């Protein structure tokens, strides 16, 4: 992509394939409203759980464009998580992420519990999420996991296509 080394992110003990995705409760934002929801109550079938940097960063924009381009929300439930507020999520969902709902985790507690925290240079006090894609089955078992190891790094959409196809077959 570029003719110099991209920044590597440190090793992290993140939620991985075979784990049960930890339950949490946070405001879950749709294009119409938000309310506190527990992940365990929301997941009732194959679910893509997408962690991404704050709304407005281009990584999140690309991610939801990919969700829309591949039509993942037609096949599985798609849930996002970022540190942005419900207001920002609602604005994001007005433009992209058709059928997606996004958890709001401004304190990054969920992001830390999932092993995805990323302290970002030049934004003191802000804990970001590194991009991650977790495909869950109905009991929250992680069937496929991808976590960024470089800054920036983007998920392999074809690999997610395949994992989604395997799970919903």
């Amino acid at each position, binding site marked *: *992509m*570029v003719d*110099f080394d*991209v*920044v590597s992110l440190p090793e992290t003990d993140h939620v991985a394939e075979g784990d049960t995705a930890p339950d949490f409760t946070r405001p879950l934002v749709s294009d119409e409203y938000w309310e506190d929801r527990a992940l365990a109550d929301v997941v009732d079938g194959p679910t893509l759980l997408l962690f991404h*940097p*704050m709304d*407005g*960063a*281009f*990584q999140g*924009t690309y991610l939801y464009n990919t969700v829309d381009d591949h039509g993942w929300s037609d096949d599985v439930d798609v849930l996002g998580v970022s540190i942005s507020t419900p207001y920002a999520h609602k604005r994001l969902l007005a433009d992209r992420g058709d059928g997606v709902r996004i958890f709001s985790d401004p304190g990054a507690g969920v992001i830390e519990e999932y092993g995805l925290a990323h302290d*970002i*240079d*030049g*934004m003191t006090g802000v804990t970001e999420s590194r991009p991650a894609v977790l495909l869950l089955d109905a009991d929250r078992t992680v069937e496929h996991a991808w976590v960024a190891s470089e*800054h*920036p790094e983007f998920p392999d959409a074809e690999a997610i296509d395949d994992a989604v196809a395997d799970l919903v077959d």
Partner: protein
Amino acid sequence: MSEPQITLYRLQACPFCERVVRTLDELDLSYRSRYVEPMHSERNVVKRVSGARSVPAIVDRETGVTMSESANIVEYLNGTYGEGGA
């Protein structure tokens, strides 16, 4: 704390900006980060400062240099502050 001499205009997770940050860190230079929006149309501050909306861009108050393009910036920083530099 005194003002850092270098201001870096950057975009979150932009690899070209991270490249400049790495060079700044390697040279132990203090800098101030100013983050701008991904949309070019929302980067007027960068255009005012550097004449273009591209990031990364740096302003070095010590030398009076303003510069865009990561390869140029890295070369400038190494040449000015690296070993053998002025």
